[in-house]
């Protein structure tokens, strides 16, 4: 995550409780709105039910009235029965209506007391008149009083009053409902805004997060490239250093070889010459001759030793006679020491002096390995130009080795590889159990001006 203001803000732990709070708030709003909507709708439906029930109640009362009137006029039992059944049904009907109104208006904002009393009064009056009318059918010859409560203006106005009372009740309930409906709209608007806001915030959050991720990826990529570049540089530096070390070593060896050759060699040769003169001294006693012979023997041994040391340090033939001749001599030497044929196929190649020495050393090292480990019966050394490169190969038919197991730290292989690579070459090694070993090094051909054709 980059260390920008955005990054730091996001990283801040404060965000966690804030987000939790926002999420909780959104959920609460949602839930409250739902409950509110549910209640309001239920009440709306309730209001409609109340209206229906009010109409039903009013209808029943009208029926009761007409039954009562009929009975009063005709005195038929049928009408009485009808009246009675209606009266039985009425309490239930208006009870249901008041119950529903109570649901619609739980706070009791709308008073239904007036309507209740009117209904009761009307029902009581009707019952009384009906009872009176019933008594009138028995033979008592009392003249019927005009059932004032059943006909005429007062009855009509009473009924009208009742109807108006009903309407007012229902209107009040509707007003209560309206305010509830308005608040429902508000709540739904709030919910809608909340959801939109939530969606927008989520999208924004996701965008920011993905942006950060991409930034992070870019940074990682940059860091990786930087690292790769550094590794590359280091490797090149190491390679150069290895090259310098090798050169320093070879120079040192050449220096020592030279000293041995010049100073020590000179002395030994001078001694040999003295010996030659000593041998020719006339009248040398036999004992002296013997001693001289013995001395000369030791001297020769010393000279041979000096030679061996010099050749191992710096092959003199390489400088004087060229790479191919030097390799021939080396192979002949090894063949003589090991007693096995070392075949050569050497073509003249164009290389600079340092690369020539490296090739010589690679062959020398490989042949040393062959003599130490391979137990081969023959060896093939090849030097040839291949396109833009010079390839040298040392192949034996010995017992080989497992490259993976041995690793490059042994048998001077690592040294060889470092050396070869320090001269812009490539070393490849192929070996398997009982299938011999092949060491192959390739070098770039030298430019015309810095090489000499080695024959």
């Amino acid at each position, binding site marked *: 995550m980059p260390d920008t203001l955005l990054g730091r803000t996001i990283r801040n732990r404060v965000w966690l409780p804030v987000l939790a709070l926002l999420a909780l708030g959104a959920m609460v709003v949602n839930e409250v709105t739902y409950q509110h909507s549910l209640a309001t709708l239920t009440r709306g439906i309730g209001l409609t039910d109340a209206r229906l029930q009010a109409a039903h109640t009013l209808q029943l009362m009208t029926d009761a009235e007409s039954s009562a009137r009929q009975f009063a006029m005709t005195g038929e039992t049928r009408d009485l029965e009808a009246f009675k059944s209606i009266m039985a049904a009425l309490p239930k009907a208006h009870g249901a209506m008041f119950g529903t109104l109570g649901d619609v208006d739980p706070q009791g904002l709308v008073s239904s007391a007036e309507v209740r009393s009117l209904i009761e009064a009307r029902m009581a009056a009707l019952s009384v008149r009906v009872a009176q009318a019933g008594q009138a059918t028995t033979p008592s010859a009392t003249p019927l009083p005009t059932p004032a409560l059943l006909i005429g203006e007062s009855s009509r106005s009473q009924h009208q009053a009742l109807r108006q009372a009903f309407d007012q009740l229902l209107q009040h309930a509707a007003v209560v409902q309206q305010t509830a409906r308005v608040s429902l709209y508000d709540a739904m608007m709030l919910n809608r805004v909340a959801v939109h806001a939530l969606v927008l915030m989520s999208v924004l959050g996701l965008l920011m997060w993905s942006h950060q991720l991409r930034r992070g990826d870019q940074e990682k990529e940059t860091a990786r490239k930087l690292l790769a570049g550094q590794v590359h540089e280091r490797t090149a530096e190491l390679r150069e250093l290895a090259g310098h070390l090798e050169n320093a070593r070879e120079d040192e060896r050449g220096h020592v070889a030279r000293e041995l050759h010049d100073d020590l060699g*000179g*002395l030994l*040769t*001078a001694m*040999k*010459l003295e010996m*030659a003169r000593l*041998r020719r001294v006339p009248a040398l006693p036999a004992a002296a001759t013997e001693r001289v012979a013995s001395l000369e023997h030791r001297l020769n041994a010393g000279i041979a030793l000096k030679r061996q040391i010099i050749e191992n340090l710096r092959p*003199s*033939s390489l400088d004087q006679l060229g790479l191919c001749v030097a390799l021939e001599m080396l192979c002949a030497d090894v063949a003589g020491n090991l007693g096995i044929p070392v075949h050569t196929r050497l073509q003249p190649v164009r290389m600079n002096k340092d690369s020539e020495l490296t090739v010589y050393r690679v062959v020398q090292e490989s042949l040393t390995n062959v003599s130490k480990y391979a137990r081969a019966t023959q060896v093939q050394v090849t030097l040839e130009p291949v396109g833009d490169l010079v390839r040298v190969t040392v192949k034996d038919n010995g017992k080989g080795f497992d490259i993976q197991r041995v690793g490059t730290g042994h048998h001077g292989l690592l040294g060889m590889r470092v050396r070869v690579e320090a001269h812009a070459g490539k070393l490849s090694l192929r070996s398997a159990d009982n299938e011999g070993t092949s060491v192959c090094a390739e070098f770039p051909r030298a430019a015309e001006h810095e090489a000499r054709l080695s024959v």
Partner: protein
Amino acid sequence: MKTFIVEDNAVILDSLISTLQDLTEVEVVGTAADEKTAVSWMRHAGGDCELIIIDIYLRTGSGLGVLEALSHMPSGPKRVVLTNYATPEIQRRCSELGADRVFDKSRDLDSLITYCSWLAESQPRTPGGLS
């Protein structure tokens, strides 16, 4: 027998001169320690030189270069190579470049002395002169 020696090691040179002059008829008329000096001497003053002994490894240049230069000169001295490491390869190269004999400094010093003696004796003398 007038002899010129090309050798860069002072110790060997001294020893060689005193040995040859002691045991043979060799008369060392000049020495050189590098290829250039040797070749230029031969060109300008090597007219009556009869033997030239050349070392391969010189201070600068190489005995092989001297041999090669000599092979282009119509001169008469016998060319002998005296070297530290007379391998068959070197012998072959020297012969190719016109050397008459090749001697190894460690092995063949006796042979060299013998050869110089024989050469000195078999050289045609100037008319009227005694050896």
